[in-house]
């Protein structure tokens, strides 16, 4: 038995408590402390608490977050979300393993008949420095492919930049301690001369906003300019980050896009005057430089300066309508003052002080608001049911377990406008008569968890929530908010599974009815809504339900936030009125397809949704039209596909995801999705046979009808919709062809006569499948070739052929 210091276990339990439902929190603490879950520690937990061995093993093996074996010092998590997948995440994953000398994870015997259990995890390098794993979507879709090493996220990682990333990380790890010390903010005595806004949500940080933030502080320090540097929430223009906005006292705003840290100083000097004599001298030199830089003809700055008057930016914003994301890019996410200055908590005060719960619900009903988590259930109706439930104790849950690969709306909302969600939750709590609320936030969103936590703390401090909080002393309104951290299980987005998870059980859905509104968390009536739904509520109460209902279509009211990613020119987070067409989103807001390729389809709704082909994208974005087209609104992931994307591969990708995330309870989902995946894998490996498409469709229908929960019932959608619109591609795979040249086993790389012998391909090939032949036509050894596509990307002559 391994030797483990168990003092931590005792300390941990004395803090968390001994109840059964604390199991997830205890496991998370153990994992953070030990890096994995040592068995002696787990056994001790069982001794000291009400948790049984069966509980702790069942729970700890259910969630992806937990490891039962030690991991390397650093964890490399390759995001395999949709956007990352279509941009080559699997190849990046392979490249990391290759780079670190970790052998493959092949665990199946030659005949493919039997699976040998993974006794040894082939995921850690020999030195125990790095562990490589796949991770469910981390919501940085506009940076695809994204890779997280510990807390640092790298965007746009390619097969041939893997070594650079690893080296950069190691350099960073060395200087990490030094960096930490530097972070302190100085308060200025004098009034600020203006405001510099930098967006610091998690995807922006990984695109260099953190460094830009540092550089800005440094520049201000050197120049003595007393401008306030403010971290703000997501601006939505992910394709333009790092963004830096300068707001002058007169309210004029200047927006700079794709700013490098070294440019921070010049941009600041352009708008602010240097204070103090000593610094003036210093700035003379800089000023000269500055004047050069501000010259109209000068590239470095003008290239970055963008303006809402510019057509692309106008297109980007004009079609949008910000309700859930209101003020996101303007206010500091966890600043309560800034939120209240812009009307924050007015809606809550109005509700609690002037309206009866019934009147509140009436407004929500009039607004026509439907759940933004995916199914589109009428929100007002849900609230009424919980309100009418005859029970003293009721619960509220905010579902922030946004697990759809390719979706990051909830992450952005929680990171950028935590108070709006809290206000929405508080209004709902008042309306249904609940005094306790859980925010269930997925493990992959550490920043969201942190921002929510800070915001909740401030709300307690300032008397917005708590037991009879100061702001509502007279009204007997009480509300306590808690955060429950998910642990990596997509199925926990399903409401009954989510509640099981909060109760400290495996996240297994159960049969409904009873619905949570009747019998939910710990058997009590429970209102559960998605984070985005709650974020819309304050606006509705401030502006009236009728005002909200003016937006959108007859049955789908208001706005919807979408995460626009994939092969689109402007990957972004957008909020649009319902009823806009998919084409408008892709072409006007998204700027069309990146790189001049042909627009093929849009995947909407993630693993529960479907692919809408380009020809049909003139349909309106509303719940009913999307379902009719074979997709669903889902939580709002919108991944654009171009002509190089293989639809069979896309279907396989989603099935692999849902199959992997199935809780394993009911036969149709557990085995049915697996058998569907088996067929799709056969197809992608060129081993398809006649009748496969028919069997896929037949299984799809069974899984849809017979599965217990939404995960299984919708899992076949990506398959059904791709067969419906792209059946010819399936047929081609049965014949052993992948028409777009994506499926590795069905393609071969070769060099055409256009080759000029530049040797770039040979230099970049990660497996030495191309010999170095200067000034001659190169050749690819298809035995060695791993079809990673690097040669094709680096070839300046477009001389690599794939067929």
């Amino acid at each position, binding site marked *: 038995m391994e030797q483990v210091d168990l003092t931590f276990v005792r300390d941990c339990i004395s803090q968390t408590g001994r109840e059964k439902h604390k199991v997830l929190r205890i496991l998370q603490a153990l994992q953070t402390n030990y890096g994995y879950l040592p*068995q002696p520690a*787990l*056994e001790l937990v069982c001794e000291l608490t009400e948790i*049984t*061995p*069966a*509980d*702790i*093993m*069942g729970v700890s*093996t*259910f969630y992806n977050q937990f490891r039962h074996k030690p991991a390397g010092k650093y964890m490399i998590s390759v995001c395999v979300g949709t956007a990352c997948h279509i941009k080559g995440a699997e190849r990046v994953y392979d490249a990391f393993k290759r780079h670190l000398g970790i052998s493959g994870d092949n665990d*199946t*015997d030659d*005949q*493919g*008949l*039997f*699976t*040998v*259990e993974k006794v040894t995890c082939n995921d850690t390098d020999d030195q125990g420095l790095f562990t490589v794993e796949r991770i469910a979507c981390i919501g940085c879709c506009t940076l695809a492919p994204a890779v997280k090493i510990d807390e640092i996220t790298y965007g746009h990682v390619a097969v041939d930049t893997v070594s650079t990333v690893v080296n950069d990380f190691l350099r960073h790890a060395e200087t990490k301690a030094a960096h930490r010390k530097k972070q302190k903010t100085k308060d200025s005595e004098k009034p600020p001369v203006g405001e510099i806004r930098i967006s610091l949500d998690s995807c922006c940080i990984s695109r260099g906003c953190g460094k830009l933030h540092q550089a800005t502080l440094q520049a201000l320090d050197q120049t003595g300019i007393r401008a306030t540097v403010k971290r703000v929430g997501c601006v939505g223009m992910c394709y333009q980050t790092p963004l830096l906005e300068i707001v002058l006292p007169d309210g004029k705003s200047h927006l700079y896009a794709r700013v490098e840290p070294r440019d921070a100083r010049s941009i600041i000097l352009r708008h602010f005057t240097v204070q103090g004599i000593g610094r003036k001298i210093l700035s003379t030199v800089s000023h000269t430089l500055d004047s050069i830089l501000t010259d109209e003809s000068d590239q470095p700055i003008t290239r970055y300066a963008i303006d809402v008057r510019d057509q692309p930016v106008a297109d980007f914003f004009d079609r949008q309508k910000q309700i859930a994301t209101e003020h996101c890019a303007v206010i500091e996410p966890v600043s309560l003052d800034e939120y209240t200055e812009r009307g924050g908590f007015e809606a809550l005060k109005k509700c609690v002080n002037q309206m009866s719960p019934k009147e509140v619900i009436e407004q929500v009903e009039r607004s026509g608001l439907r759940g933004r988590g995916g199914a589109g259930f009428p929100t007002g109706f849900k609230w009424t049911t919980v309100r009418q439930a005859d029970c003293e104790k009721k619960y509220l849950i905010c579902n922030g377990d946004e697990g759809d690969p390719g979706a990051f709306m909830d992450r952005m909302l929680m990171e950028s406008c935590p108070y709006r969600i809290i206000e929405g939750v508080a209004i709902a709590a008042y309306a249904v008569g609940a005094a306790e609320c859980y925010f269930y936030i997925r493990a992959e969103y550490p920043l969201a968890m942190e921002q929510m936590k800070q915001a909740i703390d401030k709300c307690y401090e300032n008397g917005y929530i708590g037991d009879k909080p100061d702001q509502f002393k007279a009204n007997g309104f009480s509300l306590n908010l808690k955060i429950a951290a998910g642990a990596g*299980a997509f199925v926990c987005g399903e409401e009954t599974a989510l509640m099981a998870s909060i109760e400290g059980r*495996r996240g297994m859905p*159960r*049969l409904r*009815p009873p619905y949570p509104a009747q019998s939910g968390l710990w058997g009590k009536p429970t209102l559960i809504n998605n984070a985005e739904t709650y974020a819309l509520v304050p606006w509705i109460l401030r502006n009236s339900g009728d005002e909200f209902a003016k937006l959108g279509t007859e049955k789908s009211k208001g706005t919807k936030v979408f995460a626009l990613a994939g092969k689109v020119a402007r990957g972004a987070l957008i909020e649009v009125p319902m009823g806009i067409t998919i084409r408008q989103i892709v072409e006007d807001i998204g700027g069309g397809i990146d790189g001049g390729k042909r627009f093929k389809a849009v995947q909407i709704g993630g693993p529960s949704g479907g692919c809408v082909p380009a020809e049909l994208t003139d349909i309106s974005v509303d719940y009913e039209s999307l379902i009719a087209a074979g997709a669903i609104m889902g939580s709002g992931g919108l991944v654009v596909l171009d002509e190089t994307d293989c639809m069979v591969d896309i279907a396989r990708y989603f099935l692999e995801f849902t*199959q*992997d*995330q*199935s*809780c*394993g*309870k*009911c*036969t*149709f989902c*557990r*085995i*049915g*999705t*697996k*058998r569907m995946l*088996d067929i799709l894998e056969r197809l992608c490996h060129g081993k398809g046979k006649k009748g496969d498409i028919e*069997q896929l469709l037949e*299984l799809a229908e*069974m899984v*849809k*009808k*017979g*599965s*217990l929960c939404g995960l299984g*019932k919708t899992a076949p959608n990506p398959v059904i919709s791709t067969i419906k619109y792209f059946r010819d591609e399936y047929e081609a795979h049965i014949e052993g062809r992948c028409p777009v040249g994506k499926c590795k086993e069905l393609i071969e790389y070769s060099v055409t006569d256009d080759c000029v012998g530049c040797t770039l391909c040979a230099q970049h090939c990660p497996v030495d499948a191309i010999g170095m032949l200067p000034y001659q036509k190169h050749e690819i050894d298809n035995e060695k070739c791993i079809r990673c596509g690097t040669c094709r990307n680096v070839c300046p002559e477009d001389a690599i052929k794939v067929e």
Partner: protein
Amino acid sequence: MLKLTIDNRDIEVQNGDTILDAAEKLGIEIPTMCFLKDCDPSTSCMVCVVKVEGTNSLVPACATVVRDGMKVQSECPEVRQARTAALELLLSDHLGDCMGPCQIGCPATMDIPLMIRQIKAGELAEAIVTIKRDIALPAILGRICPAPCQKVCRRNSFDDCVSICLLKRYAADADLKSANPYMPGCKSANGKKIAIIGAGPAGLAAGYHLLQRGYACTIFDDHEKPGGMLQYEIGREELPQDILDKEIGMVFKLGVQFKGQSKIDGAGFDELRRDFDAVFVAVGPIKPDDAKRFGLEPSQKGIAADNKTYQTNLPGVFAGGDAVRNRKLAIRALADGKEAAFAIDQFVMGQEVTGIAKPFNSKIGKIAPDRIEDFMQGVSTEARVDPTEGDSGLADEQARLEAGRCMHCDCRKPDDCKLRIYAQSHGARAGRYSGERKAFTRQDDHAEIIFEQGKCIDCGLCIQIAARAKETLGLTYIGRGFSVKVSVPFDGTIAEGLRDTASQCAKACPTGALALKQQDQP
């Protein structure tokens, strides 16, 4: 009270009752696997799905609470298709043999693994019952059978097959030698008469099995002595006269009449058809022209007969053995006799003549070399006992040693595994969906039960039972999704996991994943 209809029949139930409760009241049988009274419904197997009118999806009857005015369909094609699909999906991830390869390989489908367990335990009286259920002449066959069972024995993939044929002979010889050799119980006479033409293995077997079903049987043969090819074609060194006479004698002792030296011609045949309720033709190899003379339709090999029901073109006339197949395989002829007896019984009793239904069988197939070890747990690794010198058969000690070499591939719940029962009744095909399957594992360390994860359908009844009884370790789900499995926490053994509830769990288990070791007597 709430009103609902199931398959258009009205019923009233209490508030809170499930559709399954309502169906039970109506006497409508809904198959269930993961459901057990007094346990929380786990809604896992989905074999109990029904259709509720007005909804698109199907719901599990075991957990769906009745709403007033519900209209439920439990037998419509959609429901039946879904149930079959659920079963077929479960089977596609079910790593277990219902019957051992030997039993499938045996033409008479004798329950070989059970016989071997009985021999190993020294229960020879029980072993002969097992043998004679399917093989009327085991001592004889024990000497002349080419033993197709041994060719498919899984032990071949480890070293060498088990000497099944010798073990059978060992038990049969011991029985013949005893003061009171085994006589099967017979139903009281039903007044029906069957004529059997030919006293070879097929005819004798048919008589043996028909008599047990209450029929009066007369065997006609043109030879003086019964036995057919056993008597006249096989050397006495191989098959001693005393064994032959004694074992055949047991058939007549049971009550079968023998009329030797009676050659049946065309007219005589018609007479038999008139005087008896059915005729079984087991005359051995016969030329097609000779068949025609009896008015029987010929085939290339002799008489044309249905290969399941043994019916010929003439109503009430059945044919089997070498008269139909000309295989020169005594065990096949014996099996024909047994199977024809079943069909003849159906015919005479006025039932639909279907023959013995082929039992549903799930198969593991070839075992990966690295999984053999699992199979070999608790199995003797000794070399095969195969005495070649003389004709002494196995001595007691040898028999026990050899019996210890059996890997017991068969399922311990062949008759009460719900998966098998429903697979049979729904016509589910085990190979419908193929792909990755569970690994084979066997845990044999518990005194009362055996645990084979490959057969588990992940319903979790055992987990519930163990948790309720507050077992210290109990059982839990490990992992999730397709790779989820039921295991003892902290890598404990099944003996450590189930200290008090082992037999309760085994009884609750819908398949043979958890099975009592002692449930061999059907």
